């Protein structure tokens, strides 16, 4: 019997596999099935402030009366919508807590620091064991200075940490003008964990209709490289836990992430593709591998292959292929 137990943000988890924030984690039934499948923790489906704003917009479109006769009623209706969403989440947490014994991590996606505090407090009150902040906004504003975005992240963490006592994790994007420095700053801010990385909605085109459409929804089993690189680079340099996300489809990838220094791994796309049963398979294969390698516990191999500036930095820091293709004969391709 291998010891898969791991400690994440101070929470004791029976193994390192967490089901990430997604549609599967939005109902009590879903959460029960996830707990039964062997996952160690679950991140609830994010509460998106953006969705609330959109719903307010839809409400205005559909319900604004002739001559604006109910404008006063609808002026602050977004707060009502917000309260409804938070109430629903609170009920979900309350009911799920009765049914499952694995930690429940709340997830928030807000657009401004003012709103974060009340959302975070409400989720803490509802009984979540920790909170994941899903902060990222695509920085497409050409007038915005890069440091402003960073400042926003830090101020959100500061305010949330000041106002709640449960552990806080931040889920970040793989994009930054200096990712390593930003991750270090986030760590210094006192965050309990960093989830690397957020997977975004992709844009694609239909070349026959000129329409913009959604790109592929799920990650593939090849999408983990960037996460692996950055977990490896940062794991020895931060005090907080790191949770690996994006492209984790097998026990082998999960093992790699832990070797790189991740405390936990988050799976989503794999479950949509192959069902919740794949969690048990991943856990079994991790155990088999540990057996082969002679490891008794997860802690024994966590961080075994991470980035060491004096030893292996060249392998992690290289981004240009340079010599990689130099041995290949272009004629074979052409």
């Amino acid at each position: 019997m291998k010891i898969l137990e791991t400690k994440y943000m101070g929470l004791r988890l029976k193994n390192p596999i967490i089901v990430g924030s997604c549609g599967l984690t939005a109902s009590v039934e879903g959460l029960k099935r996830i707990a039964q499948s062997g996952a160690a923790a679950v991140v609830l489906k994010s509460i998106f402030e953006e969705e609330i704003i959109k719903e307010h917009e839809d409400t205005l479109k559909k319900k604004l009366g002739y001559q604006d006769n109910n404008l006063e009623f609808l002026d602050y209706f977004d707060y009502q919508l917000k309260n409804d969403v938070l109430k629903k989440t609170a009920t979900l947490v309350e009911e799920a807590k009765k049914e499952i014994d694995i930690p429940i991590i709340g997830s928030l996606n807000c657009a401004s620091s003012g709103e974060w505090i009340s959302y975070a407090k409400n989720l803490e009150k509802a009984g979540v064991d920790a909170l994941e902040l899903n902060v990222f906004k695509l920085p497409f504003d050409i007038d915005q200075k890069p440091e402003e975005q960073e400042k926003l992240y830090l101020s959100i963490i500061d305010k949330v940490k000041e106002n709640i006592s449960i552990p806080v994790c931040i889920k970040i994007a793989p994009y930054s003008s200096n990712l390593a420095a930003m991750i270090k700053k986030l760590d210094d801010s006192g965050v309990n964990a960093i989830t690397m990385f957020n997977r975004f909605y992709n844009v694609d085109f239909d070349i026959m209709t000129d329409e913009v459409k959604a790109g592929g929804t799920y990650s593939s089993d090849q999408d983990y490289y960037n996460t692996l690189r950055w977990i490896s680079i940062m794991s020895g340099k931060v005090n907080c836990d790191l949770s690996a996300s994006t492209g984790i489809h097998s026990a082998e990838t999960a093992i790699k992430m832990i070797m790189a220094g991740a405390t936990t791994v988050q799976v989503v796309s794999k479950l949509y593709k192959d069902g919740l049963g794949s969690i048990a398979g991943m856990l079994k294969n991790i155990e088999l591998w540990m057996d082969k390698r002679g490891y008794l516990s997860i802690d024994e191999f966590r961080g075994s292959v991470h980035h060491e500036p004096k030893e292996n930095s060249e392998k992690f820091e290289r981004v240009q292929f340079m010599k990689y293709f130099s041995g290949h004969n272009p004629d074979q391709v052409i």
Partner: protein
Amino acid sequence: MEDRNSYLKSERSQEWREELRKKIKAKDRTDVPRVKMNEVDASERVQSYIEVNSGLTQEQAQKEATRCVDCANPTCITGCPVEINIPKFIKRIEQGEFLEAAKVLKETSTLPAVCGRVCPQEKQCEANCFYTQKLKKEPVAIGYLERFAADYERESGQISIPEIKEKNGRKVACIGSGPAGLTFAGEMAKKGYDVTVFEALHEIGGVLKYGIPEFRLPNNIVDVEIESLKKMGVQFETNFIVGKTASIEDLKEEGFEAFFTGSGAGLPRFMNIPGENYIGILSSNEYLTRINLMHAADQTTDTPVVSGNKVMVVGGGNTAMDSVRTAKRLGAERAMIVYRRSMEEMPARLEEIEHAKEEGVEFMTLANPIEYFANEKGQVNQVKVQKMELGEPDASGRRRPIPVEGSEELIEVDTVVVSVGVSPNPIVPDSLPELKTTSWGTIQVNEETLQSSMPEMFAGGDIVRGGATVILAMGDGRKAAQKMDEYLKNK
């Protein structure tokens, strides 16, 4: 619609109207400047609850009435939710037949003195006036004239009690005594029904009494209307909560055959931000109800309201204006409106905003509270306010407020009144599981008949609309009465 148009045409072609039109040239009519409403001076009115607008004199009213050109196509009527025959009542004023003018109003509006005071005419009839639409001039002061005619009738002591059909011995109940309920009750009484109005509070009038302060709508105006209803045989039961004091089933056993729910939207909404439960933070419903109805401004009462020196009111609607102006009258040195958009986007009537400004109310626009702080006794003493900027317009056509990061500031307060809207009163729907409601908690009705999922239950006003104007609630009360009458006759 065709019938209505030909009716209006035939009314317009009556001899007296034609003669009146010929009396003054249209050009001379349009040269008359719009009348200014007489007002009590701001420094005087903030000392008391005296009504701010003191109405027009007969001369002013008649002169203003001459401005109306009695259009062949009276677009103003299309702007009125209850389609008052506006040119006709105005021409009656011009003629000096003020009681006749009041009669015209009462053909379609049960509470003209109320509507003349609180209706947003600038968005309704006056927005559709020929002057606004074609001449790009200030519209005829339809609202002021409506008030004038209604007040004249009341003050003359010659209030006409509508004709009542012979009693048919059938009992119907009205839940709530706001504008929808009062209108419904009056209409049903006219049709010969035995009507009882059940009111949860100790005074009749609903939002007209508990929500709108005396300085905007004096209680005696509403009381006169209630007296008329009493004379028509309508019975009132106060301190009676349908769904608690007695159920609908209990009332059915007492012989009530059908019900109209006009219980309004009296459930306050909050923002759910940290510290909102501290002492000294009230909803506008509580603040206004306690002062308007419970005399809580008097510190010798059992439950006096905290009368802060620094009062912040959150919101930009008429209720927010009523609250902040009430605070001023309670002696606040600093009475502030905090609103997250700019003055331009405020839903409150322009007149109310202007009056508030004159009375010394401070407007902090593009600002939004995000947290409250309190002293060791739990009494609110500071508000953290975040600055906002305006983004792209939303579906209401107004620019959306966006928080400005790092712009927070602390403001000293001793009372905060949260006026960010209301939700439908849940008591009646909660007591009737078979009654279908929307996701907002409003009662679902057939829009044509205002009949709910329970055939014997009709509903209107804010309990159906969520929150709208007095005149729309009245329109619902009228329509529900007509449809309930048809329903009961066919039963």
